[in-house]
């Protein structure tokens, strides 16, 4: 067995620092390798159950001591148990979608960062309007514009009428600070509706991004947002698409693919755990993330995901909705091959876990009788025998490898 490359690198670093000879270095590697072997799970050890326990014990703790923060500069995100449930249930939209946007090196200037942040933040009509007046007889709406804010947001007043995309209206600028909207239809109720859609209309930025906060994170400017749209952010100049992420796993899956989604699941789950002061080995989270993404799609853990799609009827029934699964299975005429651990425990048989997963494979000792038959038909029997033995052996090996 080989050590993971990370350990070898670390050993080499240490050796270089202490100026060790090649012989001593090799000795260290050997020693660590033997230690490492002791901590590796044995083949067919039921790590799924160990994972479930390692994750759910701290999750139980989490419900009891959820801290709340107040007054920190940043954006309020769902944390703690609700967030864990969100991740492992593979919800399409998190409650608070956020993005963390990193910038390229030549954009590490506060002015430039602010400009990028401005470009991202969604600005609606209501953000730049001071007051509105409605004339019911002439059917128009006048919006008094906040010119200071418009300057701040870098919006050109001349281009404003073109940005409002509502049918059946005519827009005009008066006195350089009033937007007059004339309604073409003769409908008073529609006019009120128009006022709302006018104030909600999108002027600038990325749709859905309601808050933008610029923070300094270890000599680097980072923009965090509330609301996410990765596809559009990637098109903005100056951002670093290799590090920019969001917490919406499905969005990552759509934009960057299944492997990136897996990484996000690991990162987000680890972050949520750590933030609560819980220390779970990352390997368990990685195993869970691998399981969620093994079929190329993100699957939830639970009734509608992994547990509900298992092949064995008995396993599905033992989890949730027992009746439903039995009825459906009997209608379809499903068969249970009793190959998994749970089914065999139910049947009171040796379950394929640990030593139960292996069977003894050995060559049949040559008796005098066998030798006689061998001499009669020497070639055929030998061949078939060895083939069978080989097959059995390879089966055993795959089992070991899989685990």
């Amino acid at each position, binding site marked *: 067995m080989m050590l993971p490359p990370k350990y070898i*690198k670390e050993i080499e670093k240490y050796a270089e620092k202490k100026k060790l000879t090649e012989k001593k270095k090799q000795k260290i590697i050997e020693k660590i390798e033997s230690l490492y072997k002791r901590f590796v799970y044995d083949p067919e050890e039921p790590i799924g159950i160990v994972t479930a326990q390692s994750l759910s014990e701290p999750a139980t703790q989490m419900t009891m001591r959820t801290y709340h923060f107040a007054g920190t500069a940043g954006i309020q995100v769902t944390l703690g148990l609700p967030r864990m449930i969100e991740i492992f249930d593979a919800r399409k939209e998190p409650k608070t979608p956020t993005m963390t946007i990193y910038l390229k090196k030549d954009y590490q200037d506060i002015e430039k960062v602010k400009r990028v942040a401005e470009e991202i933040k969604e600005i609606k009509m209501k953000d730049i309007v001071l007051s509105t007046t409605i004339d019911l007889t002439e059917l128009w709406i006048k919006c008094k514009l906040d010119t200071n804010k418009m300057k701040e947001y870098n919006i050109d007043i001349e281009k404003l009428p073109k940005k409002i995309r509502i049918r059946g209206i005519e827009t005009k600028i008066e006195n350089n600070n009033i937007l007059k909207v004339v309604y073409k239809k003769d409908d008073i109720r529609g006019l009120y509706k128009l006022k709302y859609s006018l104030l909600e209309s999108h002027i600038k930025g990325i749709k859905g991004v309601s808050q933008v906060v610029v923070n300094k994170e270890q000599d680097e400017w980072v923009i965090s947002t509330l609301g996410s749209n990765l596809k559009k952010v990637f098109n903005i100049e100056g951002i670093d698409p*290799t590090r920019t992420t969001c917490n919406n796993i499905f969005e990552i899956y759509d934009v*960057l693919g*299944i*492997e990136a989604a897996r990484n996000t699941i690991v990162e987000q789950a680890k972050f949520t755990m750590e933030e609560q002061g819980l220390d779970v080995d990352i390997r368990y989270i*990685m195993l869970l993330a691998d399981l969620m993404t*093994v079929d*190329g799609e993100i699957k939830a853990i639970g009734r509608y995901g992994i547990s509900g799609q298992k092949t064995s009827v008995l396993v599905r029934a033992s989890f949730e909705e027992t009746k439903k699964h039995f009825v459906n299975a009997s209608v379809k005429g499903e068969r249970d091959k009793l190959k998994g651990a749970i089914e065999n425990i139910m049947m009171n048989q040796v379950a394929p876990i640990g030593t139960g997963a292996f069977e003894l494979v050995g060559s049949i000792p040559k008796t005098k009788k066998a030798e006689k038959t061998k001499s009669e038909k020497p070639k055929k029997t030998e061949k078939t025998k060895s083939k069978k033995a080989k097959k059995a052996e390879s089966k055993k090996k*795959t089992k070991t490898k899989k685990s």
Partner: protein
Amino acid sequence: MPKHEILSEEEKKELLERLKIQEKQLPKILDSDPVIKKINAKAGDVIKITRNSPTAGKSIYYRLVISK
């Protein structure tokens, strides 16, 4: 995002031989995946993924491209 590479036919054969498994036992990746589209992989290809693992430094994972 980890590095994705398409395995050649020989590499694929060697891999399946080494792990003593069949193609369908590998983890899957959909052909609609953005990365798969980018590297022009087709259904039936095996993708070698080099991950940056926090525990092992680097780890290699394989996925079979399937069409949904």
